Structures are given as structure tokens and as C-alpha cells.
């Protein structure tokens, strides 16, 4: 293997990693703050990817560049449905996550995920939407070209755009959590929810807002993934996005959005390097788990965890 192809694979790894980090970042919020191991997360991301395609292809012909933002807004609405159908009666009032609450939330989020999967499969079965599609016929062009060359590697502009929006999402959410009163109460609820109630904020409302944000981020991550891959969107993508999201969140440190993004980059780059060395994608995926285990041996709380 030559140096040039290593550079190419590292660059591609960084891009993939940024997108995966964005996909996973919503999970770190709901898991870190509400202690809900959200088994619907991967399905929510896939739904976001489909929505981006549906907005572009089957409805209003929305420019894919705007898809992430539109999907984020739809994600807030879906987040409300998710919260009131699957979380409110289980975790809304719970002050601490007992084993029973945790088991119930596992089941209810799993159920919500299955519902999304079923709904998408049904829509595909009825021929309303097609799978393995994407933004065919569309390309982001700058100066008549669809790609640019960085360090001798050709990189598609659409992918660069997706990365830029991913970074924007992470920065915006970090600022929200650090600088706004909502963000501060979200972080406070994660640390002591009873003390938040005694400081005049309704923890139930804070949990609702956390779910809205987490869900909208999952869907927006999916939309970014759709721009990144361009085609091949199908319900089974969940089987890749969900496990990778869990690995990345634990790697980055539960509850840390920035950590999740960096965790995504690490997974992306390792996969790139392993691919450059072996020519196998599957081995890259396995390596992710090896990295996770090694990191947890060294720092059990993840990179940015406490």
C-alpha cells in the first residue's frame, strides 16, 4: 500500500467519521441526560434519511442542501410523538432510573423503532417510495465541477457540505448546552433532577425538550448521511447506524456531544486506515469494537466522560 492511498483513506475516514458523529450525537443526549438507552435511535436516523429523499423526490422537490434543516424541524414534531407515546409515562416522572424503569424504556423505544421500520417497509411495499434511492440526478456543483481535490484526493462537494453542516450542528448544540438556560437545565437534570425541581424548573419539561432535541438531531444526522452516501437509502441501514452510534457514544463519553463527534472521527479514521491496509470494510467495523474495548480499559468513562 502506498502513502497516497493511505492519505486518501484517512481523508475519507475523517469525512465518514464526521457524518457518523453527527448521526450518533443525538443518542448521547438522551442516554446521557435521561439515562434512556434509546433503541429507536438508528431507526430515527434512517427515517431522517428517507424524509430528506421524500422531500426532494416525492413531494416538493426540496433542494437536498436544505434537507438537513427541514428534517430537523420535522424531527422536533416526531420527537414530541416519540416522547408522549414511548417515554412520558415511563421516565417522565421517574427521578432515578431503577432497573424496572430502564427495562420498560428499552422495550418502549425498541417498539417505537420497530414501528418506524414497519412504516417505512409498508410504504416501500405499497410502492409509495422506493428503497436504495437517494438524490439521483442531483449533484452539488462549484464552478461546473462536482468535486474538488485535496491532497491529491478527489472529494465530492456534497460530502464536504454534509461535513460542514455536521460541524455546524455539533457547535450549535454545544453552544445551546453551555450558554442557554435550557441547555444548563438539561445538563443539571442529568446530574441531579430533584435539585432542578427545587430550583424552580419542571424536570418533566426538561426531559421533553431533551427528547425533542435528541430526536431532531437523530433525524438531521440521517439527512446528512443521505447527502453523504447520495443513494442506497433503505430501512436496513439501521443495522449499521445503530451499533456504530452506540460505539461512538460510549467512546466519546456518555453525555458529551463534542466527545461523540470526536469519537465519530476516530472510528471513521480507523476504518479508513484498516481499509487501506486490508481492503476489507468488514474488518474496519470489527476494529471499531476493538478500539472501544481498549479505550474503555484505559478510560472507563470514555474520552470526554466523567
Amino acid at each position, binding site marked *: 500500500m502506498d502513502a497516497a492511498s493511505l492519505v486518501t483513506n484517512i481523508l475519507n475516514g475523517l469525512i465518514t467519521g464526521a457524518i457518523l458523529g453527527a448521526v450518533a450525537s443525538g443518542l448521547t443526549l438522551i442516554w446521557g441526560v435521561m439515562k434512556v438507552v434509546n433503541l429507536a435511535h438508528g431507526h430515527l436516523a434512517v427515517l431522517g434519511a428517507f424524509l430528506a429523499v421524500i422531500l426532494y423526490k416525492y413531494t416538493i422537490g426540496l433542494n437536498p442542501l436544505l434537507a438537513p434543516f427541514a428534517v430537523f424541524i420535522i424531527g422536533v414534531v416526531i420527537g414530541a410523538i416519540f416522547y408522549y407515546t414511548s417515554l412520558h409515562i415511563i421516565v417522565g416522572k421517574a427521578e432515578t432510573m431503577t432497573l424496572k424503569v430502564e427495562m420498560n424504556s428499552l422495550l418502549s423505544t425498541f417498539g417505537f423503532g420497530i414501528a418506524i421500520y414497519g412504516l417505512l417497509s409498508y410504504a416501500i411495499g405499497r410502492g409509495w417510495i422506493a428503497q436504495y434511492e437517494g438524490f439521483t440526478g442531483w449533484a452539488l456543483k462549484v464552478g461546473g465541477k462536482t468535486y474538488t481535490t485535496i491532497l491529491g484526493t478527489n472529494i465530492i462537494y456534497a460530502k464536504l457540505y454534509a461535513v460542514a453542516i455536521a460541524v455546524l450542528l455539533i457547535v450549535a448544540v454545544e453552544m445551546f448546552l453551555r450558554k442557554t*438556560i435550557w441547555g*444548563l*437545565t438539561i*445538563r*443539571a437534570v442529568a*446530574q*441531579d433532577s*430533584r*435539585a*432542578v*425541581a*427545587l*430550583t*424552580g*424548573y*419542571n*424536570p418533566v419539561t426538561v426531559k421533553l425538550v431533551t427528547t425533542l432535541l435528541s430526536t431532531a438531531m437523530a433525524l438531521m444526522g440521517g439527512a446528512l448521511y443521505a447527502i453523504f452516501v447520495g443513494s442506497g437509502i433503505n430501512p436496513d441501514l439501521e443495522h449499521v447506524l445503530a451499533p456504530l452510534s452506540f460505539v461512538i457514544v460510549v467512546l466519546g463519553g456518555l453525555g458529551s456531544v463534542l466527545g461523540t463527534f470526536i469519537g465519530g472521527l476516530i472510528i471513521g479514521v480507523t476504518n479508513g486506515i484498516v481499509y487501506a491496509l486490508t481492503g476489507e470494510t468488514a474488518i474496519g467495523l470489527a476494529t471499531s469494537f476493538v478500539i472501544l474495548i481498549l479505550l474503555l480499559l484505559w478510560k472507563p468513562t470514555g474520552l470526554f466522560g*466523567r
Partner: protein
Amino acid sequence: MSESYMLVVEELESGYGETQVLFGVNLKVRKGQITALLGSNGAGKTTTLWTITGVIPAWRGRVVFKGDDVTRLPPHVKTRMGMILVPEGRRLWPQLTVQEHLEIAGSIPRSKNRKDELLEIVYQLFPRLKERRDQKAGTLSGGEQQMLAIARGIMMSPELLMFDEPSLGLAPKLVQDIAKTIAQLRDEHGLTVLLVEQNIHMSLQIADYGYIMENGRIVLEGPVHELEENPMVKKAYLGL
């Protein structure tokens, strides 16, 4: 007559699961005074405060705050009415900074418009907190953490400020400082205080009126100078 009381608790009963802890607690907190609720380990003092604030539900009885029956209101609503608890064990948010604690507390509607003024009061009372404002609460010393817990309470513009064992785990010198601060809040800022303590010496120094609790019941009450002379208090609590 009832206007002179900030808080009236009547026949309060509550507990955890099946276990009853409070058996008809009656107490009144007079405006502008420090009222002490005293008792040894497991007497039910903390349970009384959790029930007053609504963190755990009252099984029976009433909580009347500023003349209104607030028994069934949730804690965040009572807080917004000015009933503030500085809880046992501080219950800070370890990963948030001093300033972030004060920001959260100072942003509730009743405080928002006078946040700067409140900050000034807090930093005047505890100059240490100003030096440490960018430090995470989890890295503060025990005394500083207690200061921050009290400061967070003050930022919420309390009308009734309730303390659950503020002296717990502090060195004698710091206990004196905290006692002085609580007396200062009454004398200079006109606050009404319900002080829950095991440290009877410290409480009798600054309180106006006191209740003694045993096994979930009030067994004795009276003005502090009377309690100090009471033979049972002398024997059981003051070690005389």
C-alpha cells in the same frame, strides 16, 4: 393572626412506600424569624421538608404558605412562589460551575429582573464564591459547597428559606460562619427561615423559636430561651 405566619403545617402525615414516617406534624414559621426544627438521626426532619416542598406527597394534612393551601403543588411551582429549600447534602450539580449554578437559580421568573442585585448580595456574603466562579462545583471544598448551596437558594429570591442541616460535615469554625450568615439573612435581608438541625447548640444561638421532633412527631416546642431551660432538652440534647 395567620398573616404573621409565613408557613403553617397542620397534621402532616407522609412516608416512603408503605412505611409511615410522619405522624401528624404541626408547626408554624413566623415571618421574619428563624424557626428551628431539631431532632436526632432518623427523627423525620428531612422527610418533613421533602413533604412541605412536595418532593414526596403528603398522605394527610395541610401545608399553608403565605395563606394559600399549597399541599398538592409540585416542588418547582412552590419554588417559584418563594418557598426555597437548601437541601441536605447540598445536592449541587458537580459538573456545572459556580456561576452556572447561580445563573440557573437567578433565571426563574421571580429573580430574573434583579439577577445582578442578587449576585451582588451573594458575592458580598461569600467572596470566596466570586474567586471560584469558573470552578466546577464538584471540585469545591465542603465549606465552599455549602456556601454555593446557600447562594443558589438566595438567587431564587426566597421569602421562606429552609435549610436542611447546613452544618453537616463542616469544621466548627465553618459552622459558626454559616450560623452567622443565616442570622444575617434574617437581620439584614428580612428573610424568614426554617432551620433543620441536629446541631442544637448552633441552632439555639440564632433561632427565635424551636420545635423538637422525635419519631415523626413534635414532642416539644417553645421560644428558644424556654427550650434552653427545659430539663428534657438539657438532658437529651445539650448533654447537661
